[in-house]
């Protein structure tokens, strides 16, 4: 049992070691390929550690290893270490696995990069692996928050990997700003929680929560602030606007950070601290409603995108909404399960999309077409991912998504349940829209450059794809064979409903984009009010731009004016007075020794008079 702690610790520290090596040994970093292999080997080590740690855990076991960090007068303010239990190691495996596959894939995807850039890329990747695993294993809020910020930093660095491109730089800044807005609340929430309970530690908080919860009464505001942090990271409405723009980064980065791992950190956080949220049912309800609304909103947005990565990005937002909805309904396990399966198949989808982009040289699905014949392998793995996402039986997403629907129903969130079902329909529709437009059907009317010689990805990129596809199918089949025990009893009509909804979505996509029996333009005209709004992204990005430009810049200007003319003004006047007074005083220093003698004599005289002055 003790072994699991050390193994998890190793899994955490291995990428950190790689990061240290790469960041300190400059020639190694600038050498490119060797740096990449170093990072890959250490990540492989982390994966092995994570898997063995998982095998050493039992369902009801939690192993803690803590080292004192910030000492205070009576004891320790906070410690660092690992908190290993079954769920943490599962998440750890997902992070290490997707990291490893993405790093291997990147060798092919970024083969044309100069060695120095490639080394930089793998340095960031190692740092990300270290930070993300530290987040997963964090035994208290402080370590979690630090790692939380570190993954945010890695996200920023990797979105802006091609920083000479202005869109990439802008997207990086946007992602950073918007997640920081949530993080500020998160930090406030953590400190408020500490001031109320006097501890950051998850285990101690858990015991407090178990022990009647008097100490935790009235946690609404605290948990809501913590949720805002999670919402920023996990791209929940209205913070979701940064995620689609984050697609400016290299596609493997999108797969790793902005689909499989980092953006799910918020979900993981809520799952991990669910015992706190149980004491704030109102906040939990809000989490469920916002999650379901995000799922639906992002699904409608995904339907009108023509950039393949943006479709996937909105789909990620939508799926994160699903997970949040499950947590909001009070069944965190369902959300966590979807997190794991989603991590696998969404990484698969992104990497497959990356293979397509790599081959075709464009992101626009309307510039693709008929790729199934040219890239059969990529088509098959993309289809596996799509079916998983759509929730088709025997694929990874089917069971977890159905469980989320069941959780929403069982949790009494009837309207969010409806939203989620509608979102499931749209999910199947928009994913198969991509499949029919990009992969099936005839070649595009306006072929992108390089499409003529589009071909399947090289082996080093294909291998991770096949591994992920096999996993997506394997998990699906394994779940179908052995249903994990659910925390609730889903109604019997749920499975047929879920399958029917997914099937209907696929059928609609087939009718519109496969058979062209229904004109796509006609369809969009029919839903003009929503499709036009979706084209404009529901004006949310504009709203954010407005808020940032007008409100924050306006406040900044006002503050700047006060600083410049009031704060600085007072100081300037004071210093001017001092200068003048000094200048006047200076003149009494004549430099004549006789004057000084005169002054001394006068002073002595005055002293004598004062001493003898009659009282």
């Amino acid at each position: 049992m003790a072994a699991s702690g050390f193994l998890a610790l190793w899994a955490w520290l291995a990428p950190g070691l790689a990061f240290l090596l790469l960041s300190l040994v400059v020639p190694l970093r600038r050498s490119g390929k060797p740096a990449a292999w170093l990072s890959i080997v250490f990540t492989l080590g982390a994966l092995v550690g994570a898997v063995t740690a998982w095998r050493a855990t039992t369902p009801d076991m939690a192993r803690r290893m803590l080292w004192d960090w910030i000492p205070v007068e009576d004891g320790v303010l906070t410690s660092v270490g690992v908190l290993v239990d079954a769920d943490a190691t599962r998440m750890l495996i997902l992070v290490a696995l997707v990291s490893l596959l993405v790093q291997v894939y990147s060798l092919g995807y970024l083969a044309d990069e100069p060695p120095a850039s490639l080394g930089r890329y793998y340095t960031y990747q190692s740092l990300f692996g270290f930070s993300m695993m530290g987040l997963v294993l964090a035994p208290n809020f402080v370590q979690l928050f630090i790692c939380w910020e570190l993954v945010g930093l890695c996200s920023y660095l990797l979105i802006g990997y091609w920083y000479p491109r202005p869109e990439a730089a802008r997207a990086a800044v946007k992602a950073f700003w918007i997640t920081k807005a949530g993080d500020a609340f998160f930090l406030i929430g953590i400190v408020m929680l500490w001031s109320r309970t006097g501890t950051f530690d998850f285990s101690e908080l858990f015991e407090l929560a178990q022990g009647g919860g008097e100490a935790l009464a009235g946690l609404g505001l605290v948990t809501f602030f913590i949720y805002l942090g999670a919402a920023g990271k996990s791209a929940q409405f209205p913070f979701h606007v940064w995620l689609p723009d984050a697609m400016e980064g290299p596609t493997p980065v999108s797969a790793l950070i902005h689909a499989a791992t980092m953006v799910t950190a918020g979900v993981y956080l809520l799952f991990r601290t669910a015992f706190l949220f149980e004491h704030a049912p109102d906040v939990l309800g809000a989490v469920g409603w916002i999650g379901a609304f995000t799922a639906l909103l992002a699904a409608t947005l995904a339907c009108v995108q023509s950039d393949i990565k943006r479709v996937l990005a909105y789909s990620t937002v939508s799926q994160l909404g699903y997970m949040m909805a499950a947590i909001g309904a009070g069944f965190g396990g369902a959300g966590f399960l979807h997190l794991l399966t989603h991590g696998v198949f969404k990484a698969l989808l992104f990497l497959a999309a990356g293979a397509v982009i790599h081959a075709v040289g464009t992101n626009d699905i309307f510039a693709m077409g008929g790729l199934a014949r040219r890239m059969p392998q990529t088509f098959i793995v993309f289809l596996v991912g799509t079916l998983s996402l759509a929730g088709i039986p025997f694929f990874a997403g089917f069971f977890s998504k159905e469980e989320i629907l069941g959780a929403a129903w069982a949790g009494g969130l009837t309207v969010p349940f409806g939203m989620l079902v509608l979102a499931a329909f749209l999910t199947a529709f928009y994913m198969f829209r991509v499949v029919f437009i990009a992969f099936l059907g005839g070649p595009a009317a306006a072929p992108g450059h390089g499409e003529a010689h589009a071909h399947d990805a090289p082996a080093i990129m294909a291998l991770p794809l096949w591994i992920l596809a096999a996993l997506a199918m394997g998990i699906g089949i394994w779940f179908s064979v052995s249903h994990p025990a659910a925390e609730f009893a889903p109604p019997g009509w749920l499975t047929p409903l879920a399958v029917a909804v997914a099937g209907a979505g696929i059928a609609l996509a087939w009718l519109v984009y496969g058979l062209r029996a229904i004109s796509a333009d006609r369809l969009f005209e029919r839903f003009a009010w929503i499709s036009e709004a979706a084209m404009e992204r529901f004006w949310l990005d504009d709203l954010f731009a407005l808020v940032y430009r007008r409100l924050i810049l306006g406040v900044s200007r006002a503050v700047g004016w006060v600083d410049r003319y009031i704060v600085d003004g007072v100081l300037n006047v004071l210093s001017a007075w001092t200068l003048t007074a000094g200048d006047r005083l200076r003149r009494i220093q004549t430099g004549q020794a006789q004057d000084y003698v005169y002054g001394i004599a006068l002073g002595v005289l005055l002293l004598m008079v004062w001493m003898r002055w009659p009282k």
Partner: protein
Amino acid sequence: MTLQAYLTLAAMLFCIGLFGVITRRNTIGILLGIELMLNAVNINLVAFARFLGDVSGMVFTVFTICITVAEVALGLALVILIFRIRRTAVADHLDLLKG
């Protein structure tokens, strides 16, 4: 003669010396003023020694006279050096301490 008479003489001599130190323009004159002030002190010491019957005051006076001689020699040397460097011995021109 009473002690007061001696002390009055010493005070007057001291004031004359101080007046010279403050008002003389010539550096040599200032040195002379300082000498007068020191001698006023000497008179004080001797007078007290005489009236209190304690010889240590006179011993101090002998020391003071010796040191005054050295001080005058040093002061004159300084004045000569200043005159060589600045080509003047007038106190008004020696204002390097000016702020």
